[in-house]
């Protein structure tokens, strides 16, 4: 299962730890959520990076010790289950998580751009062919209507940039409604 990080297929430095298996001090690990929460204080002493696999049916508000984490992995049990997109955005935008945010599970090419826009910067891609086509997949769109966790300029922002050649004539009604809105704000 290739790991795509920042647009390139890379080796995965992290080891998934299952249940109560011992955790070596010098190995980057991804721990199950319960394990991480229980041992967080102790794990803070580790030299190597620590990551957690957070289930998609738990609030990210419950993910304590976020500042101790180098990586948070979120889960897509099926590509149709989009809960982790919300979790990703909350981690990035509300809680300011700056570490590696990884998508795991049913990670497919046609959702690559959604993952990136939601704030993921690494993807455990299910199919080799999809991983190879990463650049093509995320390069498909240049226009994004809404602001999201990736910081790409939304159309709102783009449209407000000065465009000297634009015809700014407005109909009277449009001007009135715009003025009314501005007045009430």
């Amino acid at each position: 299962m290739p790991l795509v990080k920042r647009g390139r297929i890379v080796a995965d430095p992290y080891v998934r730890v299952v249940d109560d298996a011992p955790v070596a001090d010098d190995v980057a690990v991804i721990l199950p959520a319960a394990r991480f929460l229980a041992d967080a204080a102790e794990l803070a002493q580790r030299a190597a990076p620590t990551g957690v696999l957070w289930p998609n049916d738990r609030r990210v508000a419950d993910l304590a010790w976020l500042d101790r984490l180098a990586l948070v992995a979120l889960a897509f049990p099926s590509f149709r289950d989009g809960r982790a997109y919300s979790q990703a955005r909350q981690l990035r935008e509300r809680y300011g998580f700056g570490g590696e945010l990884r998508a795991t599970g049913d990670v497919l090419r046609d959702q690559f751009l959604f993952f990136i826009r939601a704030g993921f910067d690494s993807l455990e891609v299910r199919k080799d062919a999809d991983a190879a086509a990463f650049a093509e997949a995320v390069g498909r769109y240049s226009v994004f209507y809404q602001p999201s966790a990736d910081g790409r300029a939304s159309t709102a922002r783009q449209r407000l940039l000065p465009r000297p050649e634009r015809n700014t004539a407005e109909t009277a009604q449009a001007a009135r409604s715009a003025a009314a809105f501005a007045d009430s704000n």
Partner: protein
Amino acid sequence: MYLYDELDRTLVAERVGEFRDQVARRLSGELTEDEFKPLRLMNGVYLQLHAYMLRISIPYGTLSSEQLRMLAHVARRYDRGYGHFTTRQNIQFHWIKLEELPEAMADLASVGMHGMQTSGNNVRNITTDQWAGVATDEIEDPRVWAEVIRQHVTLHPEFSFMPRKFKIAVGASAHDRAALRIHDMALRLHRNGAGEAGFEVMVGGGLGRTPFLAKTIKPFLPQRDVLSYVEAVLRTYNQFGRRDNAWKARIKILVHDLGVEAFAKEVEAEWQSMKDGALALDPAVFAEIAARFRYPAYERLEDGPPALAQGRRADRRFDSWMGNAVANHKVPGYAIVTLSLKPQGGTPGDATAEQMQAIADLAERYSYGEIRVGHEQNLVLPHVAQRDLAALWRALDGLGLATPNVGLVSDIIACPGLDYCSLANTRSIPVAQEIASRFRNLDVARDLGRLHINISGCINACGHHHVGHIGILGVEKNDEEFYQITIGGRADEDARLGALIGPAVRYAEVADVVEDVVAAYLELRERPQETFPQVVQRTGIEPFKERVYAAR
């Protein structure tokens, strides 16, 4: 109507390119049907009984003549010469080939049309009132807000794989012509005590197996907060909506299970954390979008030109149409014209390519190039000068688009049903046709007054039968078509769900039953102006039940 800018056009073109690639990967086997199905649904492509069905988005039911001509082209080139206007202000084509879809979509993209998010577990077409922008009772044009929200939710990375679909409606008048309360979320523009415009936010409406009317979770939301609040509702739904059972996955179930207060609290907490962030609506952003809404340069005309009254006196059929299909416009000297797509013997909501072409031409001539689609599956020409009504009527009459039955018993709302749809249990179109035939006498229809019959061929309720004055739901029993009858539903500001009057009846009996129900209404009403739903409210369903089931 809204004019696309370069960014809007580019997005649609990029979407066409992506879908072309996805179709190719499906046809080559690189994508399985399981992987491809949600992708094609997100472009409005269903696999139905006989062929693929393409549902094209008509944002808030507004079309230009150019766009309607393109729909005629799609009907001719890629389909069998006709299309079907839906209860969500969209259009469907029933005979599409998958391998031709990329071409069809490229054609549609050339006039800013697409099928994005007309299906799939995302935010669907945002609907409004088909008289938006010209109605006499609205506080402002709701379509501008629908467009602001439409852009926000289009290809939204967080809300493309929700538990289920999410339907939004926007209204701006006390009289609800957009069926707000049957939507997952409804936003009703109104003024507060200080005269400021804001939204009443209602959540949790929806029909189907467990119908609910939407409940108010925020009585007054300032306009500047609409995007952040919509975001908070969608995020709450995305995270907590049920995913274990498709029949329990809509937001209405979540609202019901949590309770309105708890649900509202959850949304409020989410909203408070983001309301002053990037989604706080900058007036300049709003103004930019509003500026691309074009309104006609209306002439200064007098109301009631004398020739019009003369014309009405001279021609009884014209007079009848004027009294039925023409409504008051907010600009003096103008009128709102409804084109009935419910002719005798026709399929409710269908129009041929020739009719579409002709309507596009008439719109250009008489309606500043603009057409509307209503959720009752009729079309509207929203900007007709009163002095042009006679000429317009003659043209429409020749095209079979002037049946004066708008809002009457034969203006039946029906889903495509088992004749087309793979989800259906029973047929609905021939049932509609038989009922309409029983009430083909226009004097009878006029005497009955406003009477909405809604027919759904299955529990998915695309015909909105729950909120019909008379609702008809097809169910299957031992491979035979049976129909449950409900009465007393309403889709307006006094929205109600209809009540079942008794056991399901056979296909051959439905029209007889409807005649009995109507006969009961005529006997029970205290005066001609007492409408069908008013009578049901007053008498309850017992007298109707007795009448229908006494001899059965």
